[in-house]
């Protein structure tokens, strides 16, 4: 499947609009921000998905579920940065948003089992030390079998 400049252009617009607003844009919002049609943008979403660069929302090709590290839906990993509230797909992606912006960030997360609040913080390009751990439940060879669960 081809991966051409239109896809790169759309991918960059997805990330620019997300970084500016805190919300992952819809295909209509991307079409409005470019000279492309909504159908062109949706087709690009499908190609970017085939290339494992984003995940459209199941049953709604106009929306994006995941533009890693950003999530298009609420998650257990909000990221407060640049005066906005972003949404990360997982704890790796929560740090990933701070790294990608780049920005200081606070992540009001919680323990995956007990739900006890666990706060992560990134300041001046470094994480504030905490004794917490991240658990990878799925081997790398299977991350894209079900990337939402991973």
């Amino acid at each position: 499947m081809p991966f051409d400049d239109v896809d790169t252009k759309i991918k960059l617009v997805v990330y620019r609009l997300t970084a500016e607003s805190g919300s992952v844009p819809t295909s209509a919002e991307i079409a409005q921000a470019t000279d492309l049609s909504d159908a062109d943008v949706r087709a690009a979403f499908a190609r970017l998905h085939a290339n494992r660069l984003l995940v459209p929302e199941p049953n709604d090709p106009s929306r994006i579920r995941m533009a890693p590290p950003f999530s298009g839906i609420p998650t257990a990993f909000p990221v407060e940065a640049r005066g906005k509230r972003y949404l990360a797909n997982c704890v790796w992606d929560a740090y990933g948003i701070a790294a990608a912006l780049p920005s200081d960030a606070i992540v009001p997360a919680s323990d995956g089992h007990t739900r006890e609040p666990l706060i992560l913080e990134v300041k001046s390009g470094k994480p504030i030390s905490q004794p917490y751990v991240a658990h990878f439940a799925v081997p790398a060879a299977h991350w894209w079998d079900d990337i939402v669960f991973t």
Partner: protein
Amino acid sequence: MLLFRSEETVDLWCDAHKIPRRPLINLDQLWQLAVTWYGNRLTIESRRPAPDEMMSIFASIGLTGPFWDPKSDQWK
């Protein structure tokens, strides 16, 4: 990937979900992974790492073995 206060709560989660315990990484390793993986994600230079590059990235923070090999067939 989920966050846990300690190895003890990881074990409780694994027991509750009947999922075998898999590798744990500390927050310094996770930050290094995030910076390497996502540091240029908003730029035109960003691209998904090839499988061998992925393994190099994992190895650079001490994560080695078939669990971190995107081409491994150990779990099929």
